[in-house]
């Protein structure tokens, strides 16, 4: 469960990115975050895995206020959150297999279990035959599937995706959405910031619309609702 109360966020350069957020998201929900560029969508998601700390307000994730996490606790907290970006953020010198395995090496899984689990997620995202490739040898859609595989491999309770289809063509985007829905079906909460009207309107989920750092609309089975 995610619960934000009276969250304000001002960047060091004085830009006010969030202006009093109040929101509750239950475990297992699928939420789109929409809004124009600069509305604060990315900042919102960054608060959830302690990439940023709010200037004011509380951010509770799984009943723990993460704004007061000690610096040393952050890595351990993050292991329960999967993160996917539009630029994939894969380790360029590691193979597909090694990129995903990394998330499990960090939690000191046994090599045997790592093998099994990595092969499992690769199967799930349909990249078993590309395990030995490095990211540069893959298409954008394939790289994004690797990023998703890495985010889901240790069964996080929340998966945060910031414009996961931002760099992909429509066809590939639908493929990514299918995988995200599958992950959601297994009980993982999904938060997805997006600019894709087609996706939001076609796959109906809860929609949180932001404007100037505030939530201006919050509907279940909502519409994208903006003219581009």
């Amino acid at each position, binding site marked *: 469960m995610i619960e934000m109360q009276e969250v304000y966020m001002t960047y060091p350069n004085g830009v006010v990115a969030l202006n009093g957020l109040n929101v509750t998201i239950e475990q297992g929900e699928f939420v789109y975050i929409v809004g124009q560029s600069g509305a604060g969508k990315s900042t919102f998601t960054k608060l959830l895995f302690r990439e940023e700390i709010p200037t004011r307000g509380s951010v509770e994730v799984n009943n723990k206020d993460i704004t007061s996490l000690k610096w*040393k606790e952050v*890595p351990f907290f993050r292991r329960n959150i999967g993160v996917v970006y539009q630029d994939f953020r*894969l*380790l360029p*010198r590691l193979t597909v297999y090694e990129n995903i395995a*990394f998330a499990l090496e*960090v939690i000191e899984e046994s090599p045997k279990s790592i093998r099994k689990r990595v092969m499992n997620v690769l199967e799930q995202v349909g990249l078993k035959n590309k395990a030995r490739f490095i990211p540069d040898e893959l298409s954008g859609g394939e790289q994004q599937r690797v990023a998703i595989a890495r985010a889901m491999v240790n069964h996080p309770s929340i998966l945060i995706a910031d414009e996961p289809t931002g760099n992909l063509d429509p066809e590939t985007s639908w493929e990514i959405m299918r995988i995200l829905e599958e992950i959601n079906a297994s009980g993982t909460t999904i938060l997805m910031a997006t600019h894709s009207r087609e996706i939001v309107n076609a796959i109906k989920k809860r929609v949180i619309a932001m404007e100037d750092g505030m939530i201006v609309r919050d509907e279940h089975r909502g519409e994208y609702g903006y003219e581009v």
Partner: protein
Amino acid sequence: MKFSTLKRHFKEGARNTWRNGWMTIASVGAVTTTLILVGVFLVLMLNLNHIASELEEDVQIKALVELTAEQSDLDQIEENINDISGIESINFVTKEEELDNLVDSMGEQGQAWGLYEQENPLNDAFIVKASDPLETERIAAEIEEFDFIYRVNYGQEYVDTLFKFNEYARNIGLVLIGALVFTAIFLISNTIKITILARKKEIGIMKLVGATNNFIRWPFFVEGMLLGVLGSLLPIAVIIVGYYFLTQNVTILQQFDFVKILDFYPFALQISLIIVGIGASIGVWGSLMSVRKFLKV
């Protein structure tokens, strides 16, 4: 930490070392240069120290007895010396023996001078050795107080000068070694920093996935260690071969019979271990220093 994790860190560190190509070669070169210089200094310093302590061992007190002393006086003196604490040995040398020694030490010239034809100008003497060489001065002073002792000498200036020289050599050596090591650390941390700039993004990604700082640091630790160990191979070879050659050709040095350098074994082994140790420390320090900045997030 699990063994499999440790294995992973070593694999990762080795792989990065390999992949960094020219940067690795540059770092190894810096360590190699440093360690060759440090190694030569160490060999010199340790041998100087060794020679000094050998000489120190040889320091002995020569107490000259007045010509008027009777046998009973000599017995009394010996008894008195024996009563002093910290005496290792006492030997009595007659003036005739002293003359023999002197003539011998001068070789053919000595014969030529015809010293035996003149009246023997030397004194009988007691040769006293202290168990602790540093006690020599005190013991000499006590002996000097005894009756019928004409003069005491123990090559004080000679030994003091040597110790002074040694101390200077050691201090200069340590300063130089320190400066060299520091320079090498600086060079390494800078070369690694260049490769890390490229890896800055990677470190960010690792943190995103929940890697702790130590987890990220480990492969760098391994990489630094590898750089240091690789950099110490050539210096060790140079020192071992060079020192072996030196010990095999000490005939030149043996002319001065006070020069006794350390035996090849175990000295060569010890110096090799010291060099590897310094190399690894330089590498690890340089590497961890350069990664430090990127972990502060």
